[in-house]
């Protein structure tokens, strides 16, 4: 009997939760705010779905309802991607060691 591909995705999901668990516990508490902003940025990889949604269908029907939702989602996710990574970078630049 063949294994449903869903089971593979579920395995990836569960293993990733474990990876996340151990990786996040090793994050130093002083970087918890950048952690939140960077997780924010990477969860915007949902833009992948938004792009598929926006480009679905023939080219003469660029703005069907489903495409419009796709374009809206692209805009929201893009705000997050640029905003999230840039603000994280800005914060991380500020963490400096004592000058010896």
């Amino acid at each position, binding site marked *: 009997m063949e294994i449903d591909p869903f089971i593979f995705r579920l395995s*990836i*999901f569960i293993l990733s939760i474990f990876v*996340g668990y151990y990786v996040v516990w090793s994050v130093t*508490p002083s970087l*918890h705010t950048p952690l939140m902003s960077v*997780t924010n940025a990477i969860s915007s990889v949902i833009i992948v779905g938004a792009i598929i949604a926006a*480009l679905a269908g023939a080219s003469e029907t660029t703005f069907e309802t489903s495409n419009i939702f*796709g374009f809206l989602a692209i805009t929201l996710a893009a*705000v997050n991607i640029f905003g999230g990574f840039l603000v994280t970078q800005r914060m*991380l630049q500020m963490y400096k060691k004592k000058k010896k």
Partner: protein
Amino acid sequence: MSANLSAFFYLISGILFILALRGLSSPETSRQGNYFGIAGMIISIIVTFLSVGNFGQGFVYVLIFLLIGGAIGAVIAFKIPMTAMPELVAGFHSLVGLAAVFVAISAFLKPEAFNLGVVGNIKLASLIEMSLGAAIGAITFSGSIIAFLKLRGIMSGAPITFKGQHILNLILGLTIIFLIYYLCLSQSANIFWTTVLISFLVGVLLIIPIGGADMPVVISMLNSYSGWAAAGIGFTLENTALIITGALVGSSGAILSYIMCKGMNRSFFNVILGGWGVTDQSAGSAVKEQKPVKNGNADDAAFLMKNASSVIIVPGYGMAVAQAQHALREMVDALKKNGVKVSYAIHPVAGRMPGHMNVLLAEANVPYDEVFELEEINNDFANCDVAYVIGANDVTNPVAKSDPQSPIYGMPVLDVEKSKSVLFVKRSLSPGYAGIDNDLFYRDNTLMLFADAKKMTEEIVKSL
């Protein structure tokens, strides 16, 4: 691009995202980590364009919208003051949530584009995944909006509670599950829309009973939700990058919520159900007897600290509100010139989000190796001459260790009272968020400095 090849690249993106979080284990590796994250994102986006393979008119529009959103995001990222980070993060969470809802709606309206079947006959598993993704996304969106409004001060930070609130939430939660079940049977668009609408409502109802000082838990929790929503959509789209990221973000937010709850010695449910700290302050102050406090000014404080050999600074939310971090750094510089050893003590729930104080101090150019967490520094108070408490209150209250009747009993606190003298910068004697009087105000070795945190610190700098 073939499906297998793109799946492989999505896996690489997922790994880069893991490395991005891994980098945050120390400030030195963190910047590199951020670049890994950016690389992962770029790979994901390019691979998606190649696998869709539609470079017509639509592609141009996609780029336009991408750039519009990106420009808005970039402007926000550069303009935002560091004190506003909590509301910014809440706002970003709401966008992820709403994007998840929009993608789910789009997939429901046009399942062919995602290989999920046809309208009216969407694959069962996909239907469950997309409706769960949409529901969690909607809760994340409206919940984050409420958190944003509360943090921004547009909405009062006071908990909003009413009778039967928890039962209503429970009923609505069960309704969502029932609707998703019914949706699977009927494939009806109306049911899908109703599910989304009720989820928006649940998000609002979940966050309104939670008070301002519990915001660190709320933000972490919404962070976690945004991850689970992304994972739900990832399953729908059969996209590994999205599944991995969703799981990472989901567990990251959950761990942060746990750390924040532990910092307050409260259970997660206790925070979520809300209503803590709803004390009638006017009634409380009427009965309270007048206890004597020692009142000092900037010169007294400057004298005490100048002659100390070690000073520990305890910042709290009040420092963020007063934007006092730069003045504080100047004060510390002046003290260091006098040969005083200075360090900073940060309580896990100081401020309005995890790590809030650390970012503000970093912004003021405080080296991160002078900043310590509660467990690292708590024993040092006994050997320190002056503790300078600026904008913190409940996290220093010794009652948490002595009075089992107190609502904050058992919460880990900074042992400020063990230092030889305590300088407490505060605007008035009013109790903190928990509504509990702080015994520390009336101790013999405490000098109260009644003023705005920034003004007082600036005055101290002048008299140093």
